[in-house]
């Protein structure tokens, strides 16, 4: 039998009474004085922040695609209903807005001599009657 095996494997060292309770409290108290580096579970970037970034990118891409398709769809719908070609629709989409309509209407009403009716009120009335802006333009 080896000499080492004859000696009981016991810890011969001692510590002051309640040492571990006291040192644990001391360590915890000391941590309150400083903040650690930001802890992220496992990786430099947390899964949560990666998900936020991925969701944001997906949202932007989806929004862009939806806007592109809606715009394209609107053009095709206008072209179909009004039997006007794509170039004319393109022009209307980019150049005709409600203020232009009001300006045009005012010019025509003025030419007819009907000055006691406000052009803005007429267009508002037509829109309220569910007359599309395209039809209003056609009748100007």
């Amino acid at each position, binding site marked *: 039998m*080896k*000499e*080492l095996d*004859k*000696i*009981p*494997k*016991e*810890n*011969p*060292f*001692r*510590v*002051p009474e309640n*040492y*571990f309770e006291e*040192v*644990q409290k*001391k*360590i*915890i108290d*000391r*941590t309150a004085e*400083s903040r*650690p*580096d*930001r*802890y*992220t*579970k*496992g990786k430099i970037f947390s899964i949560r922040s990666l998900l936020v970034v991925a969701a944001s990118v997906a949202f932007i891409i989806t929004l862009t695609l939806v806007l592109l398709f809606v715009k394209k769809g609107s053009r095709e719908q206008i072209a179909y209903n009004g039997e006007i070609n794509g170039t004319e629709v393109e022009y209307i989409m980019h150049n005709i807005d409600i203020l232009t309509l009001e300006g045009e209407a005012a010019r025509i009403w003025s030419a007819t001599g009907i000055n006691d009716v406000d052009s803005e009120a007429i267009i508002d009335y037509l829109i309220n009657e569910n007359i599309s802006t395209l039809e209003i333009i056609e009748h100007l």
Partner: protein
Amino acid sequence: MGEKEQDSDIINLLAIDISRGFRLMVERYSRRLYWHIRRIVILHEDADDALQNTFMNAWKNIGNFRHESSIYTWLYSIATNEALGIINRRNRGNAVSLDDLGTIFVRSLEGSTWFDGDAAQQKLQNAILRLPEKQRIVFNLRYYDDMSYEDMSKILSTSVGALKASYHHAVKKIEEYLQSA
């Protein structure tokens, strides 16, 4: 519960509430780290300093902790470095030979209030304290902590083969000392 399972509950709690997670880490590891440090530095006062520094370093660097290692091996690495740092500071400026260092350790042990081993245990400690520093750490981790060579390899950044050889040499030297003394 294995070390890895123990670590996982600390890791989960750290992600939810870092203070509570750290508290659990301190409660679970302070005793075993203290004994690991104490066997290196011998004096209780030095072990106390090194233990507190170990946890303060862990707290400061908790954000750098990577899951490639476990909390267990990570803390043991910090504790070992703190303990060796204390020994180096103690011997700084003094060109102390290995034999002299062993003698200094033995005297520290004999004069320590916090040692109550019997004659056989005193003899064993004398033998351990005469080992080269790294052999001493390897022997203590294996003999007292029953640590696997794989975990030891992560802590000491040494190959498993080299650690086995180191433990074998340590046991041989201790056996020779015990037979001769």
